[in-house]
């Protein structure tokens, strides 16, 4: 049968801003080839038009020139007629001039009809990288969907940043109280295998069939045997500062990260261990093995969900605020521990010198919206500071708090209401960021230097503590993984979704999905929604 080719050019504004389709049409004067143009080929109207042309002109080969194939392929496959004939898709995405595109179209039209690639059998198991609240939610939803999930976490416990928070805004719910049960759910779900204290070494393969090499670091405690009884902790003679509580609290050399750790298994900090073996003697379950070696393991999965989260900005870079130099200037994450009932002070607002805090200043945008560091907004910090300031007032009715801000960005459900209520209740909001924080040499109190209340005039505010609302920034993990996973990152170094508005969860590498702050700062509900969304993507991938 003779080939009759239809070349369909989409003239939607999305493509015609860069390419003049008319020039392509003019250059396609080829035998047995007819060129058609339509403004929105991906609309139902466009498909009707294509079907009509195919029937009227008895086309038996279709070449389509339109925008992103990733986003639109499914649309055209939705038409039975088009799917039967099979579309040869030439995406305009990334092509900058007509000449190159025309050459490409001519090649395709002159060439043989492309072979349709065969679908490989998919492995219906999933790897979720990162055990913060996003990873936990994604793992639970995928597991509920009936698929096996490996949840990989590099630290000793899942929980992520949310586990370190005291309360959550805007309802002031206790953070670990609502997160804790979810962590327990993960550990109990028959479809989830938790792999903690582990690192990805290499990833090969593609959608439906990824091979992931994982190194599991030794805990020196047998995970199977340990039951978390803590007998070992009592006898361990080595006392170290507890990183979880900003080094303000001691821990033993054999330890768990925090009380609600999942898995609740002990680990020996081998670098600090004096190998006295007291723990080994006291452990009735014979769980201690000081000679444990790292183990490697290869996982075969069909899809990967990346939920590696983010890290906080190093506030000492913003030198004028004196973080690291002045004792009573802390970051907001540190403050979460100070104010937390399970924190180093048992929830009392006490400084390291023993003084009770009454007056606390919060400085916003530390590292965010700052051309010297990160020019983007970190989203969570305005409400986080309002929440922390409320906690100060809850602890002490006579306390006073100040929030120095650029713009108060209270945009989220119930956020504005909390902001307005806080303002009415007497929280001080001062527009403009302070220029400097100094220290009163006698009391150790920080002194905030800021412009106001009159423009051009400087004021000093002596407080008991200054809390810096630090930016969120991409973690090193993102750079490492983006290489292994062949994922794109944006100019800031966060992972990039397939399309920022329309396909935020998918990536350019099919079968790999994103959720949470590894894509950019966001709050907990958005992270959780995205994680569930990524789970849906996995379910649809596996059911097809």
């Amino acid at each position, binding site marked *: 049968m003779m080939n009759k080719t239809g070349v369909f050019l989409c003239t939607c504004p999305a493509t015609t801003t860069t390419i003049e389709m008319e020039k392509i049409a003019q250059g396609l004067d080829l035998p047995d080839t007819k060129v058609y143009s339509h403004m929105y080929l991906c609309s139902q109207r466009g498909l*009707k038009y294509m079907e009509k042309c195919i029937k009227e002109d008895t086309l038996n080969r279709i070449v389509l020139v339109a925008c992103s194939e990733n986003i639109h392929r499914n649309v055209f496959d939705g038409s039975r007629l088009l799917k039967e004939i099979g579309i040869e898709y030439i995406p305009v995405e990334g092509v900058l001039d007509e000449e190159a595109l025309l050459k490409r179209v001519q090649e395709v039209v002159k060439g043989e009809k492309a072979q349709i690639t065969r679908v490989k059998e998919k492995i219906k198991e999933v790897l979720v990288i990162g055990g913060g609240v996003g990873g936990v939610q994604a793992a639970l939803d995928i597991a509920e969907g009936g698929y096996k999930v490996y949840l990989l976490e590099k630290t000793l416990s899942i929980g992520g940043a949310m586990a370190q928070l005291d309360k959550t805004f805007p309802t002031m719910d206790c953070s670990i109280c609502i997160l804790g049960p979810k962590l327990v759910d993960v550990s109990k779900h028959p479809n989830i295998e938790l792999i903690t204290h582990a690192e990805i070494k290499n990833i090969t393969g593609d959608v439906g069939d990824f091979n992931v090499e994982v190194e599991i670091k030794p805990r020196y405690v047998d995970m199977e045997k340990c039951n978390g009884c803590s007998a070992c902790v009592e006898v361990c003679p080595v006392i170290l500062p507890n990183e979880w509580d900003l080094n303000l609290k001691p821990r033993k050399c054999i330890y768990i990260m925090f009380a609600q750790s999942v898995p609740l298994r002990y680990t020996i900090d081998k670098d600090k261990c004096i190998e006295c073996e007291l723990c080994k003697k006291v452990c009735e379950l014979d769980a201690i093995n000081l000679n444990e070696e790292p183990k490697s393991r290869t996982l075969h999965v069909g899809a990967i969900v990346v939920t590696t989260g983010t890290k906080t900005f190093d506030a000492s870079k913003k030198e004028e605020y004196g973080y690291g130099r002045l004792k009573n200037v802390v970051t907001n994450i540190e403050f979460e521990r100070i104010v937390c009932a399970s924190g180093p002070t048992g929830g009392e607002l006490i400084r390291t010198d023993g003084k009770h805090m009454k007056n606390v200043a919060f400085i916003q945008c530390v590292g965010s919206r700052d051309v010297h560091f990160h020019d983007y907004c970190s989203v969570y910090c305005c409400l986080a500071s309002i929440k922390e300031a409320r906690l100060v007032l809850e602890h002490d009715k006579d306390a006073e708090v100040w929030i120095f801000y650029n713009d108060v960005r209270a945009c*989220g*459900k119930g956020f504005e209401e909390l902001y307005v209520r806080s303002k009415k209740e007497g929280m001080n909001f001062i527009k403009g960021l302070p220029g400097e924080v100094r220290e009163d040499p006698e009391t150790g109190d920080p002194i905030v230097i800021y412009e106001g209340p009159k423009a051009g005039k400087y004021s000093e505010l002596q407080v008991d503590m200054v809390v810096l609302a630090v930016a969120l920034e991409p973690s090193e993990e993102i750079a490492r993984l983006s290489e292994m996973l062949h994922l794109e990152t944006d100019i800031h170094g966060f992972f990039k979704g397939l399309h920022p508005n329309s396909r935020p969860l998918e990536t350019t590498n099919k079968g790999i999905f994103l959720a949470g702050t590894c894509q950019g700062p966001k709050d907990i509900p958005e992270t959780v929604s995205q994680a569930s969304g990524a789970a849906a993507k996995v379910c649809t991938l596996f059911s097809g």
Partner: protein
Amino acid sequence: MSEEVRIGVYVCHCGKNIAAVVDPASVAEFASSLDNVVIARENTYCCAETGQAEIKEDIKEYNLNRVVVASCSPKLHEPTFRRTVSEAGLNPYLMEMVNIREHCSWVHMNEPDAATKKSMDLVKMGVAKARLLQPLSDREVPTVKSALVIGGGIAGLQSALDIADAGHQVYLVEKSPTLGGKVAQLSGVSSDSCPPECILTPRMTETILHTKIQVFTNSEVESVDGYIGNFRVRIKRGPRYVNEDCILCGECRDVCPVDVENDFDAGMGTRKAIYLPFEQATPSTYALDSDNCTMCGLCVETCPVNAINLEENEEEIEIEVGSIIVATGFETFDPGNDPKYGYSQYDNVITSLQLERLLDPNGQTKGKPLRPSDGKMPQRIAFIQCVGSREEEGNQYCSKICCMSTIKQAQLLKSLFPEMDIIVYFRDMRIPRKEFEEAYRAVREVGVLFLRGDVRDVSETDNGNLLISTYSEVFNDITHHNVEMIVLAVGLEPCKDTDTIKDIVKVPVSPDGFFMEAHPKLRPIDTVIDGVYLAGTCLSPKDIAESVSQASGAAAKVCGLFSKDKLTLDGIISKVDQERCIGCGLCIKQCPFHAIIEEEREEEKKAKVIEAACKGCGVCAGACPTGAVDAFSFTTEQIYSQLDAALEEEPGEKIIAFCCNWCSYAGADFAGVSRLQYPSNVRIIRTMCSGRLNKDIILHAFEKGAGMVLVSGCHPPGDCHYVSGNYRCEERVNALLKKLPKKGIDPKRLRLEWVSAAEGIVFQRITEEMAEQLKELKG
């Protein structure tokens, strides 16, 4: 049951949440003194792995057969602890929770002694009930693996596609003639250089062609009955009048004599009564606006393919689905009622949505922002932010997207018309997206002026030009600017149908009028109704990226539900003791779910519960005159035991509050979460529905000496989770109120109030008033 009751009591510190106010040690010590309590302990976090392990070990070690956990709200952790005890081999229904956080430590923060005493009372009530708990078994019901999506905007489309791609049938109901929702009206280039149609069009086409999706346009959901896994949905499918044969030739439009305000262009210009909503409208046919059509029939005569049928009628369709996603979206705020902005007086004051339409290259003005008054190109445009958002009266919330939308529009205007002067009046620039912070800087660099201040007045000068007066806090002065056109960045409001849909699907709304999620942090997609999920802006203002993520999230919940063939429902149902049943049929009449039938037994009529259909509300138990019907987990005997325990000491000082599980108990929880302080003499008793209560129960409270009794449930008409239980309750309380004086009880001591899950503040007010009233009555 002859087995000896052995109870373990666990008093949780919840870090400092409880322990900072209540003294857990003395509560535990008190608990250990109660009859049948074998062991009582305190724990920092009962819900943590260690806390749960302790309970499990104790069950084995002490041979416990009942567990009481005094911690947070059962709405939070009842499933957790039920699972804990069942892992230790105990029937999960033999665990009772006592809420000493939301209902005690958080609401009596300044009275530690009273709070500790109240906690003891609450534990005593819990232990009393625990003694009478019965083992129950869960029911298994088959799941219908199809879903209903309400709303065909970007979120609804995404949910429908994800569920359908996972292999399940989807019914998508859209009230307008085309899919697309609000995104269809947006134009121009957003921050990522892709026009919105490129986001929307492929999704609409995929949806309409998908073999697993059935689209109902011009349609509305009329009613929803049933429960998770088994909803019966009635859809009213309006006539389209134009069938699929339509070839979009437009001849019908050309002959149509009726001009109608063009809603797609946000009220600017006109369209015909038969029209194509927009270029890529899906389904791709003309639509007929029956509200405005005169039925003249000209279009029918003209149509070359006979695609128009004016006789078409609406249809009723009934479907069964296992799950429902609500994605009903938003409306933009109508600034017409606020004279401050002059929107209804002056032609050249337009909304941001109208500007979107003007900027559409395919629109009426071909992408030029021409002034409505004279069609001239304005050289000086002002944007006013927060119109209908962040108000003291009215919409208090921030609409989240307007700052970004203004930046996008300013950016587009500046790129098309570099000479144009643009001023933006704002309060705070709120840009929670990293992509837009860059755009914000870029527009400032090309000269867009951002002024922080409150717009006080807009007036017209000459030639349709406008004068804006603004108060600036920085300069403490009023400034004036002359402009040629004003764009009001209007806020988002819940869609108009929210009130109707809320009653149909029984999902409550938050104080801001948007639908309310099950938990603002960790369950942002779920609702209090199992099997019903939320997606997109019907929940709160959000941008496209957040809407589609959430919509996929909702799809994941549905896929999870459909991954199993059977669903486990709880064992809380009603039971009829046929020996005591007199066959009066009251329970049959009052059951909202037709779950009780009549059967003949030894020539006598007896009532019988259909277990799979029973929802456990207990309305039947409240109705039964002989006490033959009882509701598991909330039996009359159990409620009496709680009352007896609560009123053992100083009964006259106490206020007994009966709260239904869904609204008023949750409302009291919300008071706790919001730290709203109220009198510590309130003792809350939970039932599933206010319809569970009757005069006997209320009178029992008075007989035991209760000072005051509050009966509270969900707001009528539509909030009740059991359709009409609140009305049954109202009837019974009203009848009792009349009888109280005869019994020597002052009717002022009994109050019936409706409290929704969001009305913590109402619960606080009512209890405060009742405490006052109690003082007054005691003189």
